[in-house]
């Protein structure tokens, strides 16, 4: 099936009242959690995952995807108006967006953020629609050796993309993979690390782990200080940017789209990295870089476009290869599996309705967000006045419901509490949690590919050298490890000298 036919099928599926309704709900919830600091897309996705069990696969996944890109739209609102990014991918938006608001140009900043996001989202969706089937046709020829190489590259790239210590990143990946080893062995069915517990036979549940790490630990962090609601004093006028704003912004939007798309596709990349790279690029290219940080509209247009383009980009490895490139798409992979669908090259052949339905839903979601977002800015701002002490009981109860209802089992609540406390301690000690989540999700696939490759190989590890794709991926992985070690060594030397 060609891309145009596929998209036509996708739109015919998504343009029903039921699917549009769930797409709308996802967009609204996404914007809401993007606006509210203290709850990110990962926590929201994991909390709402159980709702999708009862829904048809297309509606469920379309809603979860809408939460992901909706959060990118919503995050900019608080970044611009009160200098508090609603989520990590809008951190750089606050640098110039908030200064614009202080200069009385909040409307233009919000308008450009929304329009840039829409343009970037749409362009990168077109790229996704054409690029994904191509990659799928290549991926159909992948065997276990190729899969292993690409997954190793994905895991190591996560350490490369995140801030902080390389060794801590390695520890997180090792721990994540070890957690995925608990329970029944994927190859020969033998129980591992279960210590005779029946509850551990199937290992720890991914949803309970993620709700603990990103939902409960966030509640605990927010409990350190009980803040009251923020008062927004900025008045918002004129959401449509001026001709001069467009003149300044159209190139940053296009560059942001390109950067975002590439960083979305790259393993370990995602909206957060994309927005930072776009800001750095705009500042470097600018004729007057000193304007940045003082209210330059390019500093809003570029990163906001980049984080939306990255969402579409990161759907490519998920839909075509079945490999998530960041923690949010890892959770989406979990959602597909719970629906009984294994994303990957076979999905386009076996479930074209789901493949094209999800892509079409993202086109529709982008339009919904543009139409809803700008007129509703005032409403979102009002929500910021709700103190966290009123919101957290809902988040806490949602966490319990989310963890319990996956398997209808109280044991998963214990798992959630355990990972919540561990997540809190790790965050306080500067550990990054996304490599851990990615490792937990990829663990079973990685082990299966590694062992299958070695079992079918007559000469051991040479199977990886014989496949050009596996050899290239593992070669790049080795180069990245080398670069990381040099970086770690240099930074330690620097610290010792100072």
């Amino acid at each position, binding site marked *: 099936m060609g891309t145009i036919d596929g998209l036509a099928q996708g739109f015919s599926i998504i343009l029903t009242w039921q699917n549009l309704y769930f797409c709308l709900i996802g967009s609204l919830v996404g914007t809401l959690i993007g606006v509210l600091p203290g709850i990110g897309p990962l926590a929201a996705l994991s909390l709402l995952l159980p709702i999708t069990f*009862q829904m048809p696969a297309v509606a469920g996944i379309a809603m979860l995807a809408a939460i992901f890109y909706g959060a990118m739209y919503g995050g900019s609102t608080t970044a611009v108006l009160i200098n508090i990014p609603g989520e990590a991918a809008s951190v750089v938006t606050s640098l110039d967006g908030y200064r614009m608001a202080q200069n009385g140009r909040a409307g233009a900043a919000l308008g450009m953020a929304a329009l840039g996001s829409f343009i970037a989202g749409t362009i990168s969706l077109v790229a996704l629609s054409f690029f994904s089937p191509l990659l799928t046709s290549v991926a159909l020829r992948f065997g276990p050796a190729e899969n292993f190489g690409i997954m190793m590259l994905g895991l190591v790239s996560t350490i490369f993309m995140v801030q902080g210590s390389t060794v801590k990143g390695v520890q997180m990946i090792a721990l994540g993979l070890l957690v995925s080893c608990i329970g029944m062995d994927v190859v*020969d069915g033998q129980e591992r690390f279960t210590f005779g517990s029946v509850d551990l036979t199937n290992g720890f549940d991914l949803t309970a782990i993620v709700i603990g790490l990103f939902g409960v630990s966030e509640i605990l962090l927010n409990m350190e200080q009980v803040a009251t609601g923020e008062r927004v004093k900025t008045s918002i006028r004129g959401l449509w940017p001026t001709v001069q704003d467009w003149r300044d912004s159209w190139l940053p939007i296009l560059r942001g789209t390109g950067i975002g798309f590439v960083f979305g596709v790259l393993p370990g990349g995602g909206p957060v990295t994309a927005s930072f790279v776009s800001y750095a690029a705009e500042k470097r290219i600018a004729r007057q870089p000193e304007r940045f940080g003082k209210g330059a509209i390019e500093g809003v247009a570029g990163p906001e476009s980049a984080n939306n383009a990255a969402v579409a980009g990161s759907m490519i490895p998920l839909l075509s290869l079945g490999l998530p490139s960041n923690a949010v798409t890892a959770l989406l992979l979990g959602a597909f599996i719970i629906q009984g669908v294994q994303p990957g090259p076979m999905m386009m052949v076996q479930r074209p309705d789901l493949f094209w339905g999800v892509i079409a839903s993202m086109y529709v979601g982008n339009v919904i967000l543009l139409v809803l977002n700008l007129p509703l800015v005032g409403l979102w701002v009002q929500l910021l006045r709700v103190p966290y002490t009123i919101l957290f009981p809902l988040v806490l109860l949602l966490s319990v419901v989310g963890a319990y209802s996956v398997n209808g089992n109280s044991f998963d609540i214990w798992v959630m*509490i355990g990972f919540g406390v561990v997540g809190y301690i790790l965050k306080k000690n500067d550990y990054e949690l996304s490599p851990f989540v990615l490792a937990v999700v990829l663990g079973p696939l990685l082990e299966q590919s590694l062992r299958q490759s070695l079992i079918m190989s007559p000469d051991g590890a040479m199977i990886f050298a014989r496949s050009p794709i596996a050899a290239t991926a593992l070669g790049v992985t080795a180069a990245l490890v080398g670069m990381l070690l040099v970086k770690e060594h240099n930074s330690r030397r620097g610290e010792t000298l100072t």
Partner: protein
Amino acid sequence: MRRWHLGLNTFWLLLGLGVVALSLRMPVLGPSGPGGGFLPLILGGLLTASSLTLLLQPVRTVSPDADTEWPDRGGLRRIGAVVAALVAFPILMPSLGFLLTSLAVMLCLLPAIARRHWLANVALSVAASGGIYLVFARLLGLNLPRGPWGF
């Protein structure tokens, strides 16, 4: 941070060594290829080696910034209260059901978190637990545990 750095890495080190010891009891390399202990053995070794690297690095490079900022006594009390509230769920829910447990937990937890009029806390507890129950158990049909009175 230094104390926590040492504590965490000692824990990872012991965990890594434990994993290595347990993996060696499983089939690691058999005639038909690697067994169930193969990957855990590598991972246990990696965890041990990485923890040793961090433990053995000069102490002054451990913490370039100030110590980890832990919350004050009030913050720790609130965190403790939230964890205790969460622990109450798996213990009470099988016998009391979701609705009663969440109502009881919220009634005890909210006064410990923020100072409000007691009526406001009761109203918030009823609204939060009732609202979540209504949406998830009634509207969405999720199978939440029921208490002795059928809800």
